[in-house]
């Protein structure tokens, strides 16, 4: 599942936490990567900006792993482009 979107999310995590990109894998948990509550807020901010999406507090709370993060972003970007296609 090494697609472009996943790569972008993994890079965002590495950049936010200032760790080497190689340390981040889909199976990592946010806790394993050492992301505390403030790091997670920074990451959500980065992802919302990079993908032009809005992640709700409820959606954010349930995320534990990088894989869940990637799938969450994928859903949101899909529904965002779906919406803009509808409104166009």
């Amino acid at each position, binding site marked *: 599942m090494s697609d472009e979107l996943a790569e972008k999310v993994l890079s965002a995590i590495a950049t936010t936490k200032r760790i080497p990109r190689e340390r981040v894998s889909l199976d990592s948990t946010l806790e394993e990567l050492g992301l*505390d*509550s*403030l790091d997670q*807020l920074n990451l959500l901010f980065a992802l919302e900006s990079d993908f032009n999406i*809005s992640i*709700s*507090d409820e959606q954010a709370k349930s995320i534990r792993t990088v894989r869940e993060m990637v799938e969450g972003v994928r859903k949101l970007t899909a529904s965002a482009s779906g919406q803009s296609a509808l409104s166009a």
Partner: protein
Amino acid sequence: MTPRRVAVTGLGVISALGQDVPCFWNDLRAGRPGISRIESVDISGLRFQNGAQVRGYDPGQHFEPAQSDLLDRFSQFALIAARQAVRDSGIVFTPELRQRAAVVTGSSVGGQSSEDAQFWEVYRCNAPRVHPLTIPRIMANAGASHIAMEFGISGAVYTVSTACASSNHAIGQAFWMVRDGVADLAIAGGSEAPFSFGFLKAWEAMRVVAPDTCRPFSRDRKGLILGEGGAMLVLEPLEQARARGVPLYAEIVGFGMSSDAGHITTPSIDGPSRAMQAALRDANIGPERVGYINAHGTGTTNNDVTESRAIRQAFGLHADKLAVSSTKSMHGHALGAAGALEAIATVLALYHRTLPPTANFTTPDPECDLDIVPNQARATEAEYALSNAFAFGGLNAVLAFRRA
């Protein structure tokens, strides 16, 4: 000089629970929240919509236009609360007392709405100049200075800014000054008016604001509700108050502070616990004497669990005999004014022998296993009570009061 006992002889409050002390107490006693849709700011671009605002507020009822020009909303609240407290105390300022009196206020963010409005003009509308009263309106000490000017108080006057613990630090230091003979009277408390769009967006990014309401210690709690208001207490030596023959609301008997020195936003258990213990030591009482704690109780996932554990750590087995409630469930989290609003709630609880409940409570959380006085006020014979305030930045301040 031997330390003096210090009495609370005047109270003033303006908040989401009305614009005076009787309204405040009526709502607290009834467990009636002042939380509603935010009206003073366009919230269409916000994830949350509710706040605890001062409703039906008309500055024109309190200030002449020339004075209003100088006052941001947070200073107005400070001045309104101070006027009420001074009137309530029946104090008469002599020239000597004016020099020996102090004003200590707390504010986290100062003149937020003035700052937002003026910076909007500059950044967004390319205005070539900013209003010349912007600086005197936004400075965090504006409230304290206006109180000093109104009553001619020329002793120690200053403002403490420790985020959500600001006014507990302010009241605590004022208490110590009166106790130690540095001041013969103090007006102490805090005020905040944080409803500006930019500031609300910043809170949105913290992801701790509830979309519906504030349910402290409830398993289904979703976060805090921001609030605004002002609250002031008049503190004076107990002997002086007795000589004046005025009624006493309570005695203020202890103040404790600590720093987590850990994380900038995640609270610790040890820091708050040490602040409570320090307040008890300062009051020279054992934990078993305390019957009530007005909790910091923000309604966030993190705070309520950590605070519950901190109370257990500080009180041991006595934690099971304590009543603990969060009045933020009703007046919201007024940041730098929170401690002052809650100090007044605590003083009134002792005075009326009635504990205000934790409102909006639905489901117990096993991780917050304290008696949190759900939804219904309760009669109490508590002699001593604490009021907790724990700030972002890991700064903790706890006040101890005794029934008069």
